[in-house]
């Protein structure tokens, strides 16, 4: 499976020009500021914007090439819009089954029950769409998209219009879907947090062009990119649950950085999780501290130092070859005389688990 794009598009002053091959598995996030052309790319892939010219090839099937143009309904994709856009003249159940009924039975890879279960909308099925909350509507819209058994799922900032509670409710559902489904997902977002939690690959866009792309771990920690300069800059570590500490109510997780201790979570031993460490929660010491309350301390080597604004620096550390960011004040960096190549210890004050 692969998605190949060579697209050009002009809308007034805005110009889009991209040449990109998307990963065939997992979630690829298209990340960038608003107006950078993320949605335009997604609409072109879906065939919703016919003014884009160029090539779109999915799984060796040409969707668009020159004057050749496969209509949207003949592309095996599904699209989740920023607004839920439910069909108001139909019940919730009819919405969910709209796409399902239009897919030949042999091509169905997801049953409507599975989708309903995954999004937790069982209790909403007989409701009128107008009585649902924003978060409920979007869950129905996602289930509706899944039910059309797409080979490619496109999501255009599906959480950005929702309140915080709905976001924290839906994001883990999306993470679970990512791990369960085989179809690639292209996820447009301008929220670094969503991207860090969900994406496997990242395509960074600015002013209609792709600035950089790669796997999420390295993209998050490249100091020359906007992601590492963000206030919410964070590093990502893949880990596996190894044990629970009954006495102190902690969970231990192993990663290539070392063993993490976090507050006990209802996770099964052997379960794979993603750890997120905010750059501002990481501090650096020259010697390994003994008299500290911080549990997560790992040896690392300073790889790069970059100023952020006037008072802060971001330090890119390599802990057993895994990149971790630390945000320090410029004063601390100067007092400690930090330099590239130094062996130090990183201390992570808090670690988020997904």
């Amino acid at each position: 499976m692969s998605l190949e794009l060579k697209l050009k598009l002009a809308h007034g002053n805005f110009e889009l020009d991209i040449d990109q091959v998307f990963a065939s598995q997992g979630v690829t996030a298209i990340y960038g500021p608003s107006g950078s052309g993320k949605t335009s790319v997604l609409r072109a892939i879906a065939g919703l914007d016919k003014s884009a010219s160029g090539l779109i090839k999915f799984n060796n099937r040409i969707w668009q090439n020159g004057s050749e143009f496969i209509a949207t309904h003949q592309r095996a994709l599904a699209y989740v819009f920023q607004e839920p856009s439910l069909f108001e003249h139909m019940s919730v159940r009819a919405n969910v089954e709209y796409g399902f009924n239009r897919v030949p039975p042999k091509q169905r890879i997801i049953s409507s029950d599975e989708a309903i279960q995954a999004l937790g909308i069982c209790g909403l099925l007989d409701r009128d769409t107008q009585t649902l909350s924003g978060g409920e509507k979007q869950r129905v819209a996602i289930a509706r998209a899944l039910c059309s058994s797409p080979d490619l799922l496109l999501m255009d900032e599906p959480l950005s219009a929702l309140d915080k509670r709905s976001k924290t409710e839906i994001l883990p559902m999306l993470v679970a879907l990512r791990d369960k489904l085989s179809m690639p997902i292209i996820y447009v977002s301008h929220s670094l947090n969503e991207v860090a939690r969900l994406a496997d690959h990242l395509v960074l866009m600015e002013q209609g062009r792709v600035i950089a792309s790669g796997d999420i771990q390295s993209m998050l920690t490249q100091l020359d990119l906007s992601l590492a300069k963000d206030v919410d800059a964070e590093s990502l570590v893949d880990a596996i649950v190894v044990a629970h500490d009954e006495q102190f109510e902690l969970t231990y997780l192993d990663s290539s950085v070392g063993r993490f201790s976090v507050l006990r979570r209802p996770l099964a031993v052997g379960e794979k999780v993603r750890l997120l460490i905010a750059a501002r929660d990481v501090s650096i010491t020259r010697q390994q501290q003994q008299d500290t309350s911080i549990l997560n301390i790992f040896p690392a080597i300073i790889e790069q130092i970059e100023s952020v604004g006037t008072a802060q620096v971001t330090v890119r550390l390599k802990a057993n070859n895994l990149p971790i960011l630390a945000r320090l004040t410029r004063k601390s960096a100067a007092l400690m005389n930090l330099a590239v190549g130094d062996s130090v210890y990183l201390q992570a004050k808090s670690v988020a688990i997904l």
Partner: protein
Amino acid sequence: MFSESDITALLLTLKLAGISTLVLILFGTPLAWWLAKSAWRFKFLLEALLALPLVLPPTVLGFYLLVAFSPQSSIGHAFESIVGQPLAFSFTGLVVGSVIYSLPFVIQPLQNAFIAVGRRPLEVAATLRASPSDRFFSVVVPLAKPGFLSAAVLGFAHTLGEFGVVLMIGGNIPGETQVASIAIYEHVESMQLASAHWLSAALLLISFCLLVLVYAANPKARVLRL
């Protein structure tokens, strides 16, 4: 109460309104859809042309139709050579006249309803594998239902009240072109005021019941609110 000819006239009126409404919806729907979706730069010319029956005196429209229907004109001649009878002073001629006369009353609510549906529901349906015709019938028609209802009621009611055009192109042939409004006019002309009363009351009642039915069935819909 009603003479036999009055009942014939009433039934003919309902038949004319019914058939005209059917034809109007069948032809008006694709036309209104095109008007709602097209970005053609000279679309306004067609829109102005289609709105003409709203402002023209029915006699003007009737006069031109009469000219077009005459066997000397190409339209009238073609119709007569195919069907074998002239278009003028025939029921078919009345249907053609009514359709043209009531077209804006059908086109405008439909066009507005189609615009109100917007692009998004159609895009969603397309990404869920619905073909263009599938999208039209499963999404546009149900969402534009109030528009269809307005269009049908207005088309029907407007044809029911038609007088000038009928007088010009249909004349007053009982059972063929003598509709209720013409029969009322004739009753008044010949001082049969009681008959005129009964027939007028019948038209009033039919129109009122029709509208009550529609408003009652769609309390929230924007029916007939032009």
